[in-house]
C-alpha cells in the first residue's frame, strides 16, 4: 500500500484517542541494561497484578528503550507527571509491584523508590529535576524511553516519518545543502562532514548506489548506537531513507554487531513494520522513490567497524580493510558508490529536516554542531547514557551529570575514543568536548565512549589493556599494525611485570610513530594513541614502574603486595570471608594476616575493608 500524509495523521489521531482512554501510562525501560537488572520480571509482574486488580484496561504498561540511567535500573516512569522509580524489583519484587500499584491507583509516591542523589540528602520525583537528566539536551534520544520501539504507530504518533514526507518533496540537492549547512559531522568518531560525503556519493558515477548504517559499535565502553537501535530503530531507518533519496540510492544496509541480539531483532521488526505501512519499498509517499533496507549481523570482529572492512564483510568475505586510494563513495560495496554513516549520524537527519538546518547549527560550537550521545561509564557515580550539546566541558559531564567519582576517590583520567583515543588528565577537565579539542589533546571524540578512571586505575595497565585489545583485533593484513602493535604490547607488558628497562619509553614512542605512519587503516593508524597519551600525561607512572618497580595504583600484580595494618584491623572477618582463596587468617576481634605466598592479589580485601586496614605496598 502507498501511505499518504493524511494516513499518518489519522494513525496519530487514532493513537492519541486510544492513549486518552488509558488513565495512566507506565513506561518500563527494557534496554539491555535494565533487562539484565530484571526489567522483564517487573513488566510481567505488573501486567499480571493489573489483570488481577481489573485495571488492565485503564493502565497501559509499555516496554521502552534505554532511559539512560542504567546504573539505577530497572527504571520505571509513571504517568504524565513522570514519577521516576529506580532499581524496581531489585530488593523484593512483590513489594515493589504493590508499591507501583499504589502509585497507579491513588498517586501515592513511594519515597524509598525515588531517585536519590549521591549525597543521600534529597530524593527527586521527576527526571526533569535529577541533575543527570537536567543537564542534557536530548534530541537523538528524545523518543528513547518514551515509545515502545516495537510499535511503529507510536513512532508515527510522535511525528515519525514526517521528515521523510517533507524530504521527498524537496530536491535531493536541496537536502544535501541542508545537511551541509547544518554542520552535521560523522558521529562514528572521525567527524567527517556528512553533507560533503553525501555530495561526493551523489556525484559518483554509477546507477546502483548503496547507503550503509554502521552499527558495528566495537569500541569497548560505548553503547550509544545499541541504545538507539534498540530504543528508536525507526529514527535510524527514517534517516537512511532520506539519505538514500538525497544520494540516489535505493538500497540500504544496516551492519550490527553480533553482540547486540536485541538491536538486531528490534531493527528487523521495525523494517518489517515500515514495509507493511509502505514507508519502505516501492513508490514511497507516491514520490516514485523506492528504498529497501537489509540487516547484516557482524561476527565479533572489531576491525569491521572500519568502513572498507565492513563493506568487505557485507560482501560475504572476511572483514579486512583496504587502502582508501579510491574512496568508498566512489567504489564501496561490490565496487559501487557507497555512503556509510554511523547510526547516530543517520538518527540526526530526520530532526534536521523537521526543524531546519538553522536550528541544528545553532546548537554546539563553531565547528562541531548539534549534540552528541555519550556513554558515561567507569568510576563515575551515575553511569549511563547522556546526550549533551557539543562544547560542554568534561567537568560538567563528569561532575554535574555524572555526580563525580565513585566513593569520592581522586579523579585520574577520562578515556575517550575507545582503542583509537587517549586518556585525558585532570588539568584538561575544563576543555570543551568537540571533535577538534579532543583531537588536540591526543585523544579523539570517537563514537562516544567516555570512561572515567580514578586513583585505583593504573595508566600503564590501561595502555596495556588497549594494546592487548588491538593485538587481538588487528586483522593481520598489514605488517606495521600486526607486528608493531604486538611489539608495543610486549614492552608494556614487560613494564607491568616489573621487567621494564631504561629506554623502553623512547622505544615505545618510536614504534608508535612508525605504526601510526605506516598502517593501512584507521585501526592501526590510531592504535598508538592510548600509549602515547598515557606517556604524555602520566610519564611519572611509567618511570615508577620501570625504575622503582612500583605500581602506585596497586594494579600491576607483579609489583604489589597486600598486607594488613595491625593497629587499624578490628578483626571484623569481612576480608577473611570474601577472600576467594582463603589466604587470610585470624579469629574474630583478632588482627588478621594475609598469607602472601597464597595471595592472588585480586584486591578484594582492599576493596571490602571498611577501616582502611588493608594496604598496598
Amino acid at each position, binding site marked *: 500500500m502507498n501511505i499518504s500524509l493524511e494516513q499518518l495523521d489519522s494513525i496519530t489521531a487514532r493513537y492519541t484517542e486510544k492513549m486518552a482512554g488509558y488513565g495512566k501510562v507506565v513506561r518500563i525501560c527494557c534496554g*539491555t*541494561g535494565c*533487562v*539484565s*537488572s530484571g526489567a522483564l520480571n517487573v513488566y510481567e509482574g505488573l501486567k499480571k497484578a493489573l489483570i488481577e486488580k481489573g485495571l488492565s484496561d485503564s493502565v497501559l504498561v509499555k516496554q521502552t528503550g534505554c532511559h539512560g540511567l*542504567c*546504573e539505577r*535500573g530497572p527504571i520505571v516512569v509513571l504517568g504524565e507527571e513522570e514519577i521516576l522509580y529506580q532499581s524496581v524489583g531489585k530488593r523484593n519484587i512483590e513489594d515493589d509491584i504493590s508499591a507501583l500499584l499504589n502509585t497507579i491507583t491513588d498517586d501515592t509516591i513511594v519515597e524509598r523508590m525515588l531517585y536519590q542523589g549521591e549525597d543521600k540528602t534529597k530524593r527527586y520525583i521527576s527526571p526533569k529535576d535529577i541533575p543527570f537528566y537536567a543537564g542534557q539536551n536530548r534530541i537523538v534520544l528524545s523518543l528513547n524511553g518514551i515509545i515502545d520501539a516495537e510499535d511503529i504507530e507510536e513512532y508515527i504518533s510522535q511525528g515519525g516519518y514526517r521528515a521523510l514526507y517533507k524530504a521527498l518533496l524537496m530536491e535531493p540537492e536541496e537536502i544535501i545543502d541542508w545537511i551541509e549547512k547544518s554542520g552535521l559531522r560523522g558521529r562514528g568518531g572521525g567527524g567527517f562532514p556528512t553533507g560533503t560525503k553525501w555530495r561526493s556519493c551523489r556525484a559518483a558515477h554509477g546507477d546502483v548506489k548503496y547507503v550503509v548504517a554502521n552499527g558495528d*559499535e*566495537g*569500541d*569497548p*565502553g*560505548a*553503547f550509544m548506537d*545499541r541504545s538507539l537501535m534498540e530504543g528508536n530503530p525507526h529514527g535510524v531507518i527514517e534517516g537512511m531513507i532520506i539519505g538514500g533519496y538525497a544520494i540516489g540510492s535505493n538500497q540500504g544496509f544496516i551492519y550490527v*554487531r*553480533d*553482540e*547486540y541480539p536485541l538491536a538486531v531483532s528490534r531493527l528487523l521488526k521495525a523494517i518489517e513494520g515500515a514495509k507493511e505501512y509502505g514507508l519502505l519499498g516501492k513508490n514511497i509517499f507516491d514520490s516514485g522513490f523506492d528504498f529497501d533496507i537489509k540487516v*547484516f*549481523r*557482524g*561476527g*565479533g*570482529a*572489531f576491525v569491521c567497524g572500519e568502513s572498507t572492512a565492513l563493506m568487505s*564483510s*557485507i*560482501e*560475504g*568475505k*572476511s*572483514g*579486512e580493510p583496504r587502502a582508501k586510494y579510491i574512496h568508498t563513495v566512489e567504489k564501496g560495496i561490490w565496487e559501487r558508490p557507497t555512503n556509510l554513516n554511523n547510526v547516530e549520524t543517520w538518527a540526526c537527519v530526520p530532526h534536521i529536516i523537521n526543524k531546519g538546518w538553522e536550528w541544528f547549527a545553532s546548537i554546539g560550537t563553531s565547528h562541531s554542531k548539534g549534540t552528541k550521545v555519550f*556513554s558515561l*561509564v*567507569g*568510576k563515575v557515580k551515575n*553511569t*549511563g*547514557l547522556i546526550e549533551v550539546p557539543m562544547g560542554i566541558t568534561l567537568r560538567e559531564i563528569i561532575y554535574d551529570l555524572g555526580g563525580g567519582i565513585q566513593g569520592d576517590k581522586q579523579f585520574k583520567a577520562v*578515556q575517550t575514543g*575507545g582503542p583509537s583515543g587517549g586518556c585525558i588528565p585532570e588539568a584538561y577537565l575544563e576543555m570543551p568536548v568537540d571533535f577538534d579539542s579532543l583531537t588536540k589533546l591526543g585523544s579523539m571524540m570517537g563514537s562516544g*565512549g567516555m*570512561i572515567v*578512571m580514578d586513583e585505583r586505575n593504573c595508566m600503564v595497565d*590501561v595502555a596495556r*589493556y*588497549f594494546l592487548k*585489545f588491538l593485538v*587481538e*583485533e588487528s586483522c593481520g593484513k598489514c605488517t606495521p599494525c600486526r607486528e608493531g602493535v604486538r611489539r608495543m604490547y610486549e614492552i608494556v607488558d614487560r613494564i607491568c611485570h616489573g621487567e621494564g628497562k631504561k629506554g623502553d619509553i623512547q622505544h615505545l614512542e618510536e614504534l608508535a610513530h612508525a605504526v601510526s605512519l605506516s598502517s593501512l587503516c584507521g585501526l592501526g593508524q590510531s592504535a598508538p594513541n592510548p600509549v602515547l597519551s598515557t606517556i604524555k600525561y602520566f610519564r611519572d607512572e611509567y618511570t615508577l614502574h620501570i625504575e622503582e618497580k612500583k605500581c602506585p595504583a596497586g594494579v600491576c600484580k607483579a609489583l604489589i603486595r597486600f598486607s594488613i595494618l595491625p593497629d587499624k584491623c578490628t578483626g571484623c572477618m569481612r576480608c577473611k570471608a*570474601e577472600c*576467594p*582463596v582463603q589466604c587470610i587468617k585470624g579469629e574474630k576481634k583478632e588482627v588478621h594476616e594475609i598469607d602472601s605466598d597464597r595471595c*592472588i592479589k*585480586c*584486591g*578484594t580485601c582492599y576493596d571490602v575493608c571498611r577501616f582502611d586496614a588493608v594496604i598496598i605496598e
Partner: protein
Amino acid sequence: MEVDTAKIDSIIEKYNRDRSYMLAMFQDVQRLYRYLPKEAISYICKQLDIPFSKGYEMATFYKALSLKPRGRHTIHVCLGTACHLRGGPNILETFERELHIKTGETTEDGRFSIETVNCLGACALAPLVRVDEHDFGKTTQAVVKKIINEFTDGVKS
C-alpha cells in the same frame, strides 16, 4: 562428525543461497551445534560453489565462530574497558578457578565453556557476564559461584 544436511540446506535456502550471507549461515549452523563443524563449512562451500579455503578463512576470521565444540552453557566474561576497570579480569579468574578450566576450554562434563568478549555494551553494569542469553550485571566473586550453581542445578537449562 556427521552434520544434518537437510537442516543446513534449509539454512542456505533461508538466505536465498546468497553468498554474501555466508557469515549468517555459519552463525545459524553454530546455533544448531553450539559450534561450527568443519563438515558444515565444507558442505555450505560446496553448495554455494565457493572454495573450502574461503569458507575456512571466514570461519577463522570472525571471533563469534568457534571451530571447537562448546559446552552446553557458554560463559562470556566481558573485558571491555569499563569491565576491565571494574574488576572483569578478577571475575574471569574466578570462573577459571571455580571450573578448573582456562578461557577457551570446556569442562570435562561438557557443561560450561569460558570465553571472553570485548564489550557487550552494558558498560554501566560492569563487570558483566553473559551466560547463553542471560546477562548478569555488577558481578562479584560471590555471584560467580551463584551463577555456576544456578546453571548446574538446572534452574536455567
